[in-house]
């Protein structure tokens, strides 16, 4: 068993009719582990399903609707807190999808609120959020310095009443990363939504998702990310036939052609996303597919070797090697000290 069956159901819901009880049990466990149960529930809505599956998916839809409400509310509260700055509050990731009513937001799990503000507004944004009830999650001076110097965001803040996190970014990749998307272009081309917030342009939103898929973390949570890409590309291409061509040229402007090409190939392989023909990278594609699908029938991650390879690789992408060594060393030292 792997996450392949979940991918098939998302891409072709009609295939749900053929599942037996053991397959349902596995798909539900895997969908929950991948935080895709709400998405699956929306995709299968209206199909004749076994009664227990129907009940589980109906509950998942209710849960996703509550998640959506809370995510949008966090955006409202952030916008209110930042109103005095008079700068655009650009919503990123899941919150942007639901605020814009995109297919990618249907049933989507949304964790933290991610927003993008111009780099020169960062200090004022931080002060305004602290003033409005958010506080720092980490008080560790090393982590704090690490975030501020090398990551593309403020240290995460959490609201003391509502217990929800906000990540304030000023670009979509850390300055140390090898590809360097241009934040000025991201902000200049952002699309206003209702209620004083905005989101990235249709091209940039997919570029961000693609960069995020490979650069952030170890591909864990990658299926959800890849599903976003499938939905976004389909919806934007349906609105405008020139979209795929514009996506490719915009990716080149952000030095993100490779990440976007890889993400599109993976999306096509797992979700049948219609994409222009691409040259393949058989070794990379196969390894990434294995990693993305690495779940057993109980929702547990499998293939630990592939996991580790992707983890080291992802840090490598973000940090020059000497800095990586320093980071890992300090992390390790702190861990052993805490243990002792």
């Amino acid at each position, binding site marked *: 068993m792997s996450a392949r069956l979940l991918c098939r159901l998302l891409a072709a819901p009609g295939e749900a009719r053929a599942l037996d009880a053991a397959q349902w*049990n596995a798909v539900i466990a895997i969908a*929950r*582990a991948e935080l895709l149960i709400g998405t699956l529930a929306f995709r299968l809505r209206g199909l004749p399903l076994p009664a*227990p*599956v129907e009940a589980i998916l109906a509950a998942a839809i209710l849960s996703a609707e509550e998640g959506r409400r809370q995510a949008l509310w966090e955006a409202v509260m952030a916008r209110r807190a930042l109103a005095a700055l008079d700068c655009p509050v650009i919503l990123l990731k899941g919150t942007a999808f639901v605020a814009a009513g995109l297919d990618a937001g249907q049933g989507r799990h949304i964790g933290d609120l991610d927003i993008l503000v111009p780099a020169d507004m960062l200090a004022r944004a931080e002060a305004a959020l602290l003033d409005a009830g958010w506080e720092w999650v980490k008080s560790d001076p090393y982590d704090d310095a690490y975030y501020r110097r090398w990551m593309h965001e403020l240290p995460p803040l959490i609201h003391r009443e509502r217990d929800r996190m906000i990540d304030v970014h000023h670009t979509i990749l850390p300055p140390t990363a090898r590809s360097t998307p241009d934040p000025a272009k991201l902000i200049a081309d952002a699309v206003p939504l209702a209620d004083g917030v905005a989101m990235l342009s249709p091209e940039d939103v997919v570029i961000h998702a693609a960069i995020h898929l490979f650069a952030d973390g170890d591909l864990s949570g990658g299926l959800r990310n890849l599903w976003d890409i499938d939905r976004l590309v389909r919806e934007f291409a349906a609105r405008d036939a020139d979209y795929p061509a514009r996506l490719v040229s915009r990716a080149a402007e952000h030095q993100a052609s490779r990440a976007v090409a890889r993400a599109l190939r993976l999306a096509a392989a797992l979700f049948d996303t219609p994409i222009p023909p691409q040259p393949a990278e058989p070794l990379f594609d196969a390894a990434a597919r294995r990693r993305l699908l690495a779940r057993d029938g*109980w*929702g547990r991650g499998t293939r630990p070797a592939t996991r580790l390879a992707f983890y080291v690789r992802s840090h490598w992408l973000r940090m020059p090697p000497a800095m990586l060594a320093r980071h890992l060393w300090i992390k390790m030292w702190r861990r052993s000290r805490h243990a002792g």
Partner: protein
Amino acid sequence: MRHVFSVRIGPVGFRVGSDWRAPVAALRTLYAGYPTPDDGIADYNVRLSATRPWRRFIRPSVAIAGDYMLPDAAPLPLAHGLLAAEMAMNLQLALGERRFLLLHAATVERGGEAIVLTGESGAGKSTLAALLAARGWRLMGDEFALVDPETGLVHAFPRLVSLKNAAIAVVRAALPAARFGPLMAGTPKGDIRHLVPDDTAVAAMQVPARAVRLVFPRFGFAAERRTVGAGEAFVRLTQASTNYVALGERGFAAMTRFVRETPAMALDYPDADAAIAAIEAEG
């Protein structure tokens, strides 16, 4: 996973997978009279797995996992594997349940009318529920009352009753013919022994009931009864619910309806007999 056990408790189906035989064998014995999940499809998956591969064999220690997890849930020694399974099943409901409003409460029923006993650990919910069952009440559950937002009715969740420390002997004396699980000494919660709900409780576990009284018991105080207003009951019950917030407006509607329709009392009691007498007098 190597060993698998599936069971339905009230309206909730579980699939429990384990790296070891023992916890699954214990569940099989104790839940022998229970049905399996409808259509073989479980609502929740529970995993009892070794914290590290070698921990299957050397000082085996059981990590509690499943569809829904707490990042900092401490593993338990294999000797407490049954407790790990019960905790993991409760955790799935506590974190994942969205159909029913969950109240952290014990419930007993007689003549279609239910009494819901809620309070923090140590308030004596499980003990009182077991003792009331010994006096002919139907045991609906000792951990969660499941309130249906559509009907306002309480659904049963009669899992094994978890008895701790001194309560073990008290309940054994009251229910000499009942079946009990193994004694697990020295767990993080003290000594624990599970009581198997009787045949009536299992046979009627699909039958919901209307709550006619809500009781906030408190053990170890001089006997006292006090009427609790709907506002106070609302505040205390939202704190005793793990999924009130997650249910959104359905939760709000179900909770306000519950506290308006169910008279509530706070009950301080010095010993179980006093509490039982007070509850039966009111019920």
